[in-house]
């Protein structure tokens, strides 16, 4: 079970509020002594703003807090996922968000604190985000009843490359693959390094579009000149669908199942020497999602006709429908 990290897991619960008429130099000293980077500003019982150390540094020390603070604080729920909080920071340009829990102001989330936590969700080798990133966006799209597709990409025989050329060369190849993928995906797609030599791509698009992209990416990777003249190929598993109505179950579970199916498809594709893409044509209704095993068998027959007829293949290529 994937556990999506939320603001509640990281925000600062210890904070002090300052008065709107306090002087800038007084609050600057207070923040310096307390080690806090910011605090909410109150006018009587009303929350009227937030002041950060950065605000204080760029303001004349004689001023009052009311003339240095951000007057339009943004309050977010403690249950908000970290990735959504990051989007909120980018949308607002703010350095601090206030956090509400059970109807009360319960803490502060600073941009720096969030970035520190999100850094653990970034793959240091490739610079791509880790799987948490895809899960968050997938859940968001499912909740908005948008069409989604997942492409699971798996490098073929990567273990052999590691053993033949060494792990350093393997790392160079992984970086190059991630770069090629990043450069060839649409702007609305979300790419992550899922694990070792696996990458996952989330698209707010129909399965047909994702399958076509998967073909294109496997083709591009196959044709690319990688370092040391190493030939690289990649297998892809694709799945897609859409929620048409409200459902009681957690969309994160649905995302987990979809990701699992896509990864199994890429494994199946990898097993065949002639095949590079395994896709499932499974209607578009995720509400009928069963177990991975059931879906794999249901989708097996449906996939054949559609892709063989509609997608261009190179000589010697063949599609495995599972």
């Amino acid at each position: 079970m994937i556990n999506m990290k939320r603001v509640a897991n990281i925000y600062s619960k210890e904070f002090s509020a300052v008065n709107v008429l306090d002087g800038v130099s007084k609050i600057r000293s207070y923040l310096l002594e307390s080690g806090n980077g910011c605090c909410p500003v109150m006018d009587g019982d009303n929350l009227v703003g937030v002041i950060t150390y950065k605000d204080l540094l760029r303001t004349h020390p004689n001023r009052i807090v009311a003339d240095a603070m951000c007057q339009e604080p943004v309050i977010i729920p403690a249950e908000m996922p970290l990735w959504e909080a990051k989007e909120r920071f980018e949308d607002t340009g703010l350095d601090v968000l206030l956090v509400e829990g059970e109807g009360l102001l319960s803490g502060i989330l600073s941009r720096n604190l969030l970035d520190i936590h999100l850094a653990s969700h970034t793959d240091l080798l490739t610079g791509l985000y880790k799987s948490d990133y895809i899960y968050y966006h997938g859940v968001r799209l499912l909740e908005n009843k948008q069409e989604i597709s997942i492409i699971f990409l798996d490098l073929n025989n990567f273990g052999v490359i590691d053993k033949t050329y060494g792990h350093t060369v393997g790392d160079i190849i992984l970086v190059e693959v991630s770069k090629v993928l990043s450069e060839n995906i649409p702007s609305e797609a979300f790419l992550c390094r899922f694990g070792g030599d696996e990458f996952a791509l989330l698209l707010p698009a129909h399965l047909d579009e994702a399958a076509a992209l998967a073909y294109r990416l496997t083709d591009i990777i196959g044709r690319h000149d990688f370092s040391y003249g190493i030939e690289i190929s990649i297998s892809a598993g694709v799945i897609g669908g859409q929620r048409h109505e409200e459902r009681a179950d957690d969309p994160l579970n649905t995302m987990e199942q979809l990701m699992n199916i896509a990864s199994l498809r890429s494994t199946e594709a990898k097993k065949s020497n002639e095949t590079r893409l395994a896709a499932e044509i499974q209607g578009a209704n995720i509400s009928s999602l069963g177990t991975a095993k059931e879906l794999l068998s249901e989708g097996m027959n449906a996939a054949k006709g559609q892709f063989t007829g509609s997608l261009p293949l190179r000589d010697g290529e063949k599609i495995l429908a599972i």
Partner: protein
Amino acid sequence: MGIMKEPKKAEIQMHLTEFEMPPMQDVLIVGRNAPIGPEAVKRMVDVLSPDQYKIIKVNHPVIEAIVVRNALIKMIQEEKLSQFIIEEGERIVDASMIIKAHVNITVHVSKSIDL
């Protein structure tokens, strides 16, 4: 040789002028890095002369806000008055200054009537 001690003297001067209520005239131009910001000015003015001044925050690299007597805004549209004040003010104001300005508005009216 002895040291001559000169007697110490102090000179006191006092200038008396009437305290202005509030200590500003028609317009105050507040620089972005002035020691008193527009919120502080607003609170001061609200206490000393409630409902007589309006704070207009402006999007200008040097000027943060202008504080204008309401009576002037009644005579001339706020946008036109602000634009005039900023155009004239930006020539002499820098970010650390607060400038008070006296603004006179004279309205000339001419009408023809049937004899």
